[in-house]
């Protein structure tokens, strides 16, 4: 554990050991509250946005966090999400059918990896897919570290406004989706306003876009770089695929800037005293390469049991959508490699432009051929 200087010149603790990261992320003495002066933002824009939003599920501590989370967690139950498998399979097949008709090379990012989670989150929320371009544009700006706070504020307002109007419509004429359920259970009952529901749902929308699609793109490259692992994955049953995807999530860890916290009181972590008010970066992506938690951690090995990885975070803020991510990534990758067995990069590896600047690590585009 060491002190590091972040982009704005301030210092924060960088926590990298597996056990220490789990400790920090589950201990309620470490707060996610961005209003706290010691909280270390990832970028100027992100810091401003997080302070601006209320009630933002990413920025609240317990007990309020769990209360809000429980308003949405019914829709992400394992049984509920497993019920989406046939629909996800259908969407994946349709996207591959369309890709096979396109002139090569095809940008896998746009034609496939982004399409699947975008359609699914729109359908889950109850947003018409015709509006997805609008969502994509705005959510893209929210996750780029280069976006100014004005741009982020503008995009956030656009998305919140749209969702608020939609929630208000669904109070009157509910359908079968998350926005309708929240409109009926929260807004109609006077527990939350339409704007508050919109704020909560904007988070689902953003979280549901880039993370899953970047995981699909990077995993495609990763598997192509490891032909022996790819063979096992392609020929494997559902269990092999599910296990392989856990290893992919561990190995890639696309939210690559760590989880940010601030100490509310003096706490000792792994023998080091962190003082009240000091910022902490719990680097789950480094912890997932800790040899005390994973043998030979830099080796990509789809046979390993990696389920205890921290790719979805840990503690009370662990990813709400993780069952959905699993279903989407499992079906997308398994179907892609089985249906297009000769799939390969259309350009040399050196020409792939990786998106190091974004909050979520990924690619700008991924030209593929077969």
């Amino acid at each position, binding site marked *: 554990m060491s002190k590091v200087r972040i982009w704005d010149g301030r210092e924060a603790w960088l926590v990298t050991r597996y056990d220490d990261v789990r400790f920090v*992320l*589950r201990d309620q003495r470490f707060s996610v509250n961005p209003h706290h002066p010691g909280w270390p933002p990832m970028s100027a824009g992100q810091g401003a946005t997080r302070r601006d939003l209320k009630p933002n599920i990413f920025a609240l501590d317990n007990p309020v966090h*769990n209360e809000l*989370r*429980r*308003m949405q*967690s*019914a829709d*992400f*139950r*394992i*049984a509920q999400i497993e019920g989406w498998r046939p629909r996800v399979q259908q969407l994946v097949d349709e996207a591959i059918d369309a890709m096979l008709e396109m002139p090569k090379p095809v940008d896998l990012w746009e034609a496939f990896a982004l399409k699947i989670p975008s359609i699914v989150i729109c359908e889950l929320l109850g947003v018409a897919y015709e509006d997805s371009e609008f969502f994509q544009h705005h959510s893209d700006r929210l996750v780029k570290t280069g976006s100014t706070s004005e741009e982020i504020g503008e995009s956030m307002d656009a998305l919140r406004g749209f969702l608020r109007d939609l929630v208000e419509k669904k109070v009157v004429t509910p359908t079968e989706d998350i926005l309708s359920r929240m409109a009926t259970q929260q807004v109609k009952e006077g527990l939350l306003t339409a704007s508050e529901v919109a704020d909560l749902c904007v988070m689902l929308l953003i979280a549901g876009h880039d993370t899953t699609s970047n995981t699909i793109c990077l995993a495609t490259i990763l598997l192509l770089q490891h032909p022996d692992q790819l063979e096992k994955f392609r020929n494997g049953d559902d269990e092999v695929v599910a296990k392989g995807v856990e290893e992919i999530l561990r190995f890639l860890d696309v939210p690559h800037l760590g989880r940010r916290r601030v100490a509310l009181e003096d706490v000792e972590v792994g023998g080091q005293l962190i003082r009240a008010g000091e910022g902490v970066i719990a680097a789950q992506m480094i912890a997932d390469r800790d040899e005390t938690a994973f043998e030979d951690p830099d080796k990509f090995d789809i046979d390993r049991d990696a*389920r*205890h990885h921290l790719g*979805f*975070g*840990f*503690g*009370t803020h*662990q*990813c*709400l959508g*993780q*069952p959905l991510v699993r279903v989407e990534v499992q079906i997308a990758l398994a179907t892609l490699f089985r249906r297009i067995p000769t799939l390969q990069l259309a350009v040399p590896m050196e020409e792939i432009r990786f998106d190091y600047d974004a909050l979520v690590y990924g690619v700008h585009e991924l030209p593929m051929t077969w």
Partner: protein
Amino acid sequence: MKIKVDQHNCIGAGNCAQLAPKVFSQREEDGVVILLDETPGDSEAEDVAKAVKICPAQAISVSEG
């Protein structure tokens, strides 16, 4: 093996229900853990141990007997 769950701290991540569906389930209205079998047999021991380890809210505990 005797299992206890803490519904107050549970965040409904559902990992336990996925790993050991005979032992854990999720409440329909909010995904909070439901304990189906307080004293499961040895056949479930491995999956339960894994569920304890990966539970993000540390809402599951196991004692002897």
